């Protein structure tokens, strides 16, 4: 961890912006190789020496090398974990001195407890109750009362109806081929069937005192839609609560033995609120989106949803406000500045920003070189207000909040759209356009007449050509649908002559059998300057910028007039 020692700022660049910033850059190391979630980060004084350390349950670069990493100052220690960590917390087990917090890592069906960074205790979730019917069936199989086929039928029957799902053993058995059933039953019938669940989330809850250094219980959320509160000493289950769905994030306030409120964001897109004596949720917030983070700020529950927004709710589930984010939220956590009594929400966004909100007010935006996937704020080392972020690529960024920094409303950059007057991007018109307009005013009638006359002429010519083609059996009409005919019109301007070519194509791969060769219809002359003069205007059909009257045959101004080279407009 040599790079972590770069405690000085990034260098010269950005000095001025740093002066105005509220943060000091402490560490910025893109190569730390930490891949984790906000739930797997904790800060604690693990050795009781006043130096706070960062505890990270690291999933490893590809989610295969789970490790417990502890960063003290600039020294990183690692030890391998048996399985991927779902959550990491630090908590005090007992109140007597010396008070050194333990580290708890939830992983799979177990919580691994470390003291002084040494393995101390392993708690395993009790197995789930097994369906008695299923148990009966297997017992019968064990005593060879039923053959595997009957067993299969009976298990299928249980699966269809029963409330309690089958054990893995039964589910596996239902998948086994007919020929292997016998062997499967023989191999497994002696074993008792078990159903095991795993921990999905974990947090801490003060046991009976609100103090900073009070003993805390562990609160576990399980895949079996339950919440468990563990005793910090004996690791017995003190309370059990059930939820309608699997909990993903937990937020707790209060003390276990006095009164507490528990908010659990679940996989069905709802947040459930529980109280001390409620076995079931008391209130429910249906988000109609998946929650991506849950933070309790003072008394407001802030939920980030995967529809790029933050919502504030009261304890009773009433919606207070909504803020739209510019990008997807990846991580959320609480920012608590004890010295000023400030509590705010930090949200790491996919657009490489970290935004800090107090209620609806944006306090600060931090730009990071990579998208932040987990973040936490608190005391690290001997510095009270440190923001620690890990990035998508496994980098680590630490920033220290300046002691003079005060967050005020509007501290974030105001919306650029509103702060500065914007100019409408109105396409400008050229001099030639104005000239043409004047010309049209003077000779509008003539233009119109010329145009109409020419239009009729063109139609007449087209009709004549069509009749001619029909009469001479050139049949320019595609007879079969397999050989469609395409007419391709090209407008060409060469040396003051505007001509359009109509080229018939056989759209099929064969060349058209018969048909007139490319015909060139010369429409007349035009101003070369006029085309060049107004290039920025979109050319569209109904645009009358093209001087209709000019030089078209039949107009008062014949093609004999010399237009070349000049940009003359208007009447002679």
């Amino acid at each position, binding site marked *: 961890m040599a790079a972590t020692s770069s405690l000085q700022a990034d260098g010269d660049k950005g000095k001025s912006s740093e002066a105005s910033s509220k943060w000091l850059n402490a560490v910025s190391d893109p190569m730390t190789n930490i891949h984790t979630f906000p739930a797997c980060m904790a800060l604690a004084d693990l050795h009781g020496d006043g130096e706070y350390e960062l505890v990270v349950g690291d999933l490893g670069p590809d989610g295969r090398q789970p490790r417990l990493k502890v960063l003290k100052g600039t020294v990183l220690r690692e030890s391998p974990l048996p399985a991927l960590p779902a959550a990491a917390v630090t908590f005090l087990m007992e109140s007597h001195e010396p008070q050194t917090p333990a580290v708890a890592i939830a992983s799979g069906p177990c919580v691994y407890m470390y003291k002084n960074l040494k393995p101390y205790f392993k708690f395993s979730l009790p197995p789930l109750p097994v369906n008695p019917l299923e148990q009966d069936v297997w017992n019968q199989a064990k005593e060879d009362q039923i053959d595997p086929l009957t067993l299969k039928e009976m298990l299928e029957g249980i699966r269809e109806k029963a409330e309690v799902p089958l054990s*893995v053993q039964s589910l*596996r058995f239902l998948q086994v081929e007919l020929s292997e059933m016998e062997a499967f039953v023989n191999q497994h019938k002696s074993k008792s069937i078990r159903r095991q669940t795993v921990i999905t989330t974990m947090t801490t809850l003060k046991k009976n005192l609100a103090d900073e250094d009070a003993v805390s219980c562990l609160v576990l959320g399980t895949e079996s839609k339950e919440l468990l509160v563990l005793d910090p000493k004996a690791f017995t289950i003190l309370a059990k609560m059930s939820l309608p769905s699997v909990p*993903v994030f937990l937020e707790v306030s209060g003390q276990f033995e006095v009164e507490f409120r528990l908010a659990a964001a679940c996989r069905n897109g709802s947040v459930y609120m529980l109280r001390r004596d409620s076995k079931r949720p008391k209130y429910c917030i*249906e988000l109609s989106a998946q929650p991506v983070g849950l933070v309790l700020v003072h008394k407001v529950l802030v939920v980030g949803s995967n529809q790029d927004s933050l919502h504030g709710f009261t304890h009773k589930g009433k919606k207070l406000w909504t803020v739209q984010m510019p990008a997807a939220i990846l991580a959320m956590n609480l920012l608590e500045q004890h010295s000023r009594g400030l509590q705010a929400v930090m949200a790491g966004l996919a657009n490489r920003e970290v935004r800090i909100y107090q209620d609806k007010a944006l306090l600060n935006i931090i730009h990071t070189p990579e998208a932040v996937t987990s973040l936490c704020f608190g005391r690290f080392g001997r510095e009270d207000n440190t923001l620690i972020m890990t990035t998508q690529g496994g980098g680590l960024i630490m920033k220290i909040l300046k002691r003079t920094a005060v967050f005020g409303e509007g501290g974030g950059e105001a919306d650029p759209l509103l702060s500065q007057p*914007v100019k409408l991007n*109105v*396409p400008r*018109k050229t001099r030639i356009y104005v000239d043409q307009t004047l010309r049209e005013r003077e000779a509008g009638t003539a233009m119109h007449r010329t145009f109409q006359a020419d239009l009729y002429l063109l139609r007449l010519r087209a009709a004549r050509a069509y009749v001619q083609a029909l009469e001479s059996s050139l049949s320019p009409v595609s007879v079969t649908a397999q050989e469609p005919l395409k007419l391709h019109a090209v407008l060409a301007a060469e040396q003051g002559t505007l001509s359009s070519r109509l080229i018939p194509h056989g759209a099929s791969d064969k060349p058209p059998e018969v048909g007139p060769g490319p015909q060139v219809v010369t429409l007349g002359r035009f101003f070369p300057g006029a085309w060049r003069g107004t290039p920025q205007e979109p050319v569209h059909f*109904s645009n009358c910028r093209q001087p209709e009257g000019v030089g078209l045959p039949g107009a008062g101004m014949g093609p004999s007039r010399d237009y070349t080279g000049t940009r003359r407009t208007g009447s002679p």
Partner: protein
Amino acid sequence: MIWSTRNSAYTFTAPEFPILEKQNWLIHLHYIRKDFEACKAVIKEQLQETQGLCEYAIYVQALILRLEGNIQESLGLFQMCAVLSPQCADNLKQVARSLFLLGKHKAAIEVYNEAAKLNQKDWEICHNLGVCYIYLKQFDKAQDQLLSALHLNRHDLTYIMLGKIFLLKGDLDKAIEIYKKAVEFSPENTELLTTLGLLYLQLGIYQKAFEHLGNTLTYDPTNHKAILAAGSMMQTHGDFDVALTKYKVAACGVTESPPLWNNIAMCFFGKKKYVAAISCLKRANYLAPLEWKILYNLGLVHLTMQQYASAFHFLSAAINFQPKMGELYMLLAVALTNLEDTENAKRAYEEAVRLDKCNPLVNLNYAVLLYNQGEKRDALAQYQEMEKKVNLLKYSSSLEFDPEMMEVAQKLGAALQVGEALVWTKPVKDPKSKHQTASTSKATCFQQPLGSNQALGQAMSSAATYGKLPSGAGGTSQLTKPPSLPLEPEPTMEAQPAEASAQTREK
């Protein structure tokens, strides 16, 4: 590590089965962060380990597939989930959702009903059933389902769908009621606020419309729907500068909105910046070449600029898209008159008179043309027709008549020796203004131009008089000038709010 050894003690007797849900939490965390690649990797691993028994992994895989557009595949996977745990309503809900996305609404309804048996109190099932019924055009059933969804749990989305049903049924008042309730429930939802504002706008209740649109803008100052609607209202009242500043904000967000550029252009038009107006209109026309309203405005601006030949083209293009509007023919006739094609102008007027039922301008302009042609009798007939319409209007709304129109009409009346039969100065208007709210549900083409005429009319008249003045000075000689350019502004103004709301409704 010390704990890893203990588990391996069993492994000799029989292979331990892995816990099926071992990495569900990880799959979920990756999924909600939209890190689908990582998510798929974990899913694959878990499915291999559990031999395809992990229901949640299949479930999330199906969700991802559906987000990526592979609805049919996702449907198969959801059905697999439903087989793995048949008691779970969630799986059935997702099966139904995939069916819904595939457009198989009837099948979706069946599956939702199945799911409803498993879970009685789920607003989502009720809501989605309601949406399915909307697509099947069974509005009553849809309404029932949505109401029961609201009963279970209130959601903005349900309110929106319920409001939509009433809009589809054409019951604006009920729709407004629903949206009102919705706004009460979630006062900061800008979509609800905007929709309510637009509905009020449609009914001509400007005060309330403005209130709600203003609220939208306080919560989201860049909401372009609300900006467009509020701007068009300001425009209607002649606040072109304020409207323009609003539009500027919107133009930063949505640079390619044809209605927006149309409205910006008409602001410039109101400020007599005709060149800018034409520029913006041409951009709007470029963005939406088939929109007749833009072509109409282009025609109008070109008429003002006395570019009659261009105006003729735009107007005839507009008529091709909208052949049922009298005002368009009238404008075309004005252009033709100025192009000295009286015969076609007359024919256009005939068509305009035939199509238009309520705009006295059509008849007045026609009468002026006929008078100038010396066909006094026909002119008189048109004049009387116009009187009828004016009288009708006077009693049906508190519409202010354009002063220039009145002037021309009076002069024409004098010339035709009809005398001052027409009372242009209106009687007491106060009782009539109440009618406005009463007659709200009828065609809005008359409410819209409220108050707009004057500002625009003046702008137009000054534009028209420009360059025309030397032709004549006397009272009667004014009648001989090619008539009534200044008299057409109303329909443009009408086009704008309608435009704004039309645009928002299509979303």
